[in-house]
């Protein structure tokens, strides 16, 4: 798998005495759509948070598009410089469970702030593109509203547009519908479903929406105790899982 864009090799991540990822190895090809499922606390979200450089890890190596999370000088990923981390982040975007929009900025400003401040884009250009992205998520008429004036589903759609405005090659979704009322889940999933058709975009999705996972993923990974216990095409995982734990998990989720 030399063409992988994401390469975790024997990554171990501990929170104090708790081992969240245990010699975790995981490769993702460019453009691949991978869903991570599993019980809470099994380490799925940690994978995304490490990729987004929100968490350091203790052992192993991680590469994004051939660039190591360790700094070349040999300092570990725990101590990588801000410059190095910022160069890594250029390729990654993230959609959070609780949206994390900036409450003091308008919807459009939420979308234009980073392209202008980080990518050095002209404000007009960023706004044109921002409006385009808002149209894509069906919210162009809300551009001058503030996040607090939107429903949860609308906020999450804005958050997706905000992440896309930075043109990431890898987009991470950390339980994007878990904080939403059930009737608002659909509109957000619809936006993600459209994105899944983007050929170039690599997507990692942590979700409890099993039917949706089955529909959009190229590959589904079942997490258990800091490792991938089973992975494969959605058809295989959802209809004929080999592992007992996978079966039990799916039964519990689908029953609930």
């Amino acid at each position, binding site marked *: 798998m030399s063409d992988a864009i994401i390469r975790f090799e024997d990554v171990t991540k501990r929170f104090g005495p708790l081992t969240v990822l245990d010699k975790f190895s995981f490769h993702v090809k460019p453009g691949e759509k991978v869903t991570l499922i599993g019980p809470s606390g099994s380490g799925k979200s940690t994978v995304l948070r490490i990729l987004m450089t929100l968490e350091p890890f203790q052992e192993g190596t991680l590469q994004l598009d051939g660039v190591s999370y360790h700094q070349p000088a040999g300092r570990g990923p725990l101590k990588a410089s801000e410059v190095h981390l910022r160069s890594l982040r250029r390729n990654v*975007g993230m959609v959070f469970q609780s949206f*994390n929009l900036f*409450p*003091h900025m*308008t919807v*459009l400003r939420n979308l234009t702030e980073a392209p202008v401040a*980080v990518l050095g884009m002209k404000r007009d250009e960023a*706004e044109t593109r921002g409006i385009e992205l808002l149209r894509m998520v069906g919210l162009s008429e809300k551009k001058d509203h503030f996040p607090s004036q939107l429903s949860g589903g609308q906020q999450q759609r804005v958050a997706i547009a*905000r992440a896309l405005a930075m043109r990431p090659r890898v987009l991470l979704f950390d339980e994007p519908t878990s904080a939403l009322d059930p009737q608002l889940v659909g509109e957000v999933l619809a936006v993600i479903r459209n994105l899944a058709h983007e050929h170039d975009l690599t997507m990692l999705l942590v979700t409890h929406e099993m039917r949706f996972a089955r529909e959009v993923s190229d590959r589904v990974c079942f997490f258990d105790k800091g490792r991938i216990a089973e992975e494969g095409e959605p058809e295989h995982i959802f209809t004929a899982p080999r592992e007992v734990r996978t079966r039990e998990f799916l039964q519990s989720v689908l029953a609930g």
Partner: protein
Amino acid sequence: MNWTHYLMPLLRGAEVTAAIAVASTALGAAFAFAAGIARVAGGPVLSVVAQVYIEIFRGTSLLVQLFWLYYALPLVGISFGPVVTGIAGLALNIGAYGAEVVRGALKSVPDAQHEAARALNFSRGYTLLHVALPQAVVEMMPAFGNLAVQNLKDTALVSLISISDLTFRAQQLRNLTLDSMRIYFLTLLGYFAMALVVSAFMRWLEKKLRRGAAFPRGAHG
């Protein structure tokens, strides 16, 4: 002498009090932001410097600080006039209290906001200035309002380093007339009125900022 004879001198003193209060509050706010930000995001050296400043000025008495600046500092060759000394002393003192407010408000900005900023690849400085501070400032306002009133009251102490503020004028009048009750009651009323104005202004500012955070006009321009 009757009430009206006291008014003019007291009003002239009140003018000085108001000017000193405004100047020292503004300067104090600058100190508060500088030290508060240094505490939260200043790196090891700046953070310790800020902490020492905060501890010293919060841990000692304002009057001692004023006397120290006014009487002791000139002995090592550093001397300003009473007005500059008074304003600087008040500002350093209230700024140290304000710094703790700034620090608390900055720390109360949710981690999620910092994570979102990181996911968008904002630099640390940009995150502080454009993500954390605008949200934190709103939270600082009630405490800043109390500190502004506190600082107004504290200005009375500059009368003791020979600035002719409201309290100084009251003392002069009393020594002249010995009509203590009326003079000091008028003086207290004067401070009370100014404190009400300060409180009202700070509440107005807070409301404006709060509305600004929720619905600013022309937020992207």
